[in-house]
């Protein structure tokens, strides 16, 4: 139990320092090193994702970075995706989940290697009467460097919603926050400022994860001896990670994690192939 606590705390601290939830590290560690069934690891990781989201949402909300109107709009799509994921998860064999997970890890590594660019705004205000305007989703956030609110517009809402559906699906299947799909959805499709998209995405993943978490809870695969320590570890890890974020050199850190993600992907593929390097030792 102590190692679960330590692993999830470390994973969430790392995740928090990179501005994401730790699920991406928790699931591979539990399955590859702990020899747990991936379905149980995913259920435990869902709790970790909720814990990270709820724990850090407060400070984002207090700073006025979260666009809650946009969040609830996109949550319709992410929870639908999660519902789909819950329906199919039980029918998928563990090996295919491992392969899917490895693919997501590799895509994340590639994304992280490239870094996130600020969206380049190609202004086409010709179509003012779009959905986002009708729903009054455009907003502003306080920017301390300028000392005045920065206004932004939400674009291509339908593409964003489609990507969010995929993000919800992946999140339910793999027990992760699935920033891997949310980041392109928010940066490229909706063209949000990075601070707003981080805060809003963080706010949303809790609800997405709750949709699948509630199902896994009733299915009885949420084991308190595993999910409990993971939840506690995540709360403290996320708290620690948010503080580390301010101190550590971002660039070097990012390169290290690209390496870690690739390594985990390889291990997940080996697990999928039925090769358990440490399962007998655990």
């Amino acid at each position, binding site marked *: *139990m102590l190692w679960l606590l330590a692993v999830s705390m470390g994973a969430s601290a790392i995740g928090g320092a990179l501005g994401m939830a730790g699920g991406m590290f928790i699931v591979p560690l539990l399955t590859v090193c702990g020899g747990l069934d991936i379905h149980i690891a995913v259920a435990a990781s869902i*709790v970790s994702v*909720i*814990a990270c*989201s*709820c*724990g850090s*949402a*407060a*400070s984002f*909300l*207090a700073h*006025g970075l*979260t666009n*809650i*109107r946009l969040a*609830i*709009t996109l*949550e*319709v799509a992410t*929870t*639908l995706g*999660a*519902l789909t994921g*819950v*329906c199919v998860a039980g029918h998928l064999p563990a090996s295919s989940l491992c392969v899917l997970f490895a693919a997501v890890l590799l895509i994340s590594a590639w994304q992280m290697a490239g870094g996130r660019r600020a969206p380049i705004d190609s202004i086409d205000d010709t179509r003012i009467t779009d959905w986002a305007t009708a*729903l009054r989703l455009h907003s502003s956030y306080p920017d301390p460097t300028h000392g005045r609110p920065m206004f932004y517009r939400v674009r291509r809402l339908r593409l964003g919603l489609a990507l969010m559906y995929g993000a919800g699906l992946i999140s339910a299947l793999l027990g992760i926050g699935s920033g891997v799909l949310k980041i392109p959805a928010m940066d490229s499709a909706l063209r949000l400022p990075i601070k707003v998209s981080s805060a809003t995405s963080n706010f949303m993943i*809790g*609800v997405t*994860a*709750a*949709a*699948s*978490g*509630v*199902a*896994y*809870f*009733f*299915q*009885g695969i*949420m084991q*308190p*001896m595993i*999910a*409990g*320590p993971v*939840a*506690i570890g995540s*709360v403290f890890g996320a708290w620690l990670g948010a503080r580390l974020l301010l101190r550590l050199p971002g660039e070097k850190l990012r390169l290290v994690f690209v390496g870690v993600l690739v390594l985990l992907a390889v291990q997940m593929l080996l697990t999928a192939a039925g090769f358990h390097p440490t399962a007998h030792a655990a």
Partner: protein
Amino acid sequence: MNQSSLEQLLARVLSVGTWLGTAIIAAGLGLRCMAWGQGQSAQVCMRMASLGIALFILLPVLRVALMAVAFIRMRDFVFTAMATTVLVIIGLAACFGTPAG
């Protein structure tokens, strides 16, 4: 209620809920590890840990419910409908998770 006071309320609820959930799980697991870990009382401890986990899962749901109520009070019915839809979808997921019979 305006939007910024809604944001403050959500921030409070989420942070209080997080620490409460953590405390309940920690208490359950802690007692399980101590001398209580036998028979009937061990089950009670596990129930407690499960309760804490359930609280975590319900926290975002509560957040959406609060938003739905706030949108009603702001007379913003499109957003009330969206928040309600999210709640219905989560309800469906819960029904799907409940074993039949």
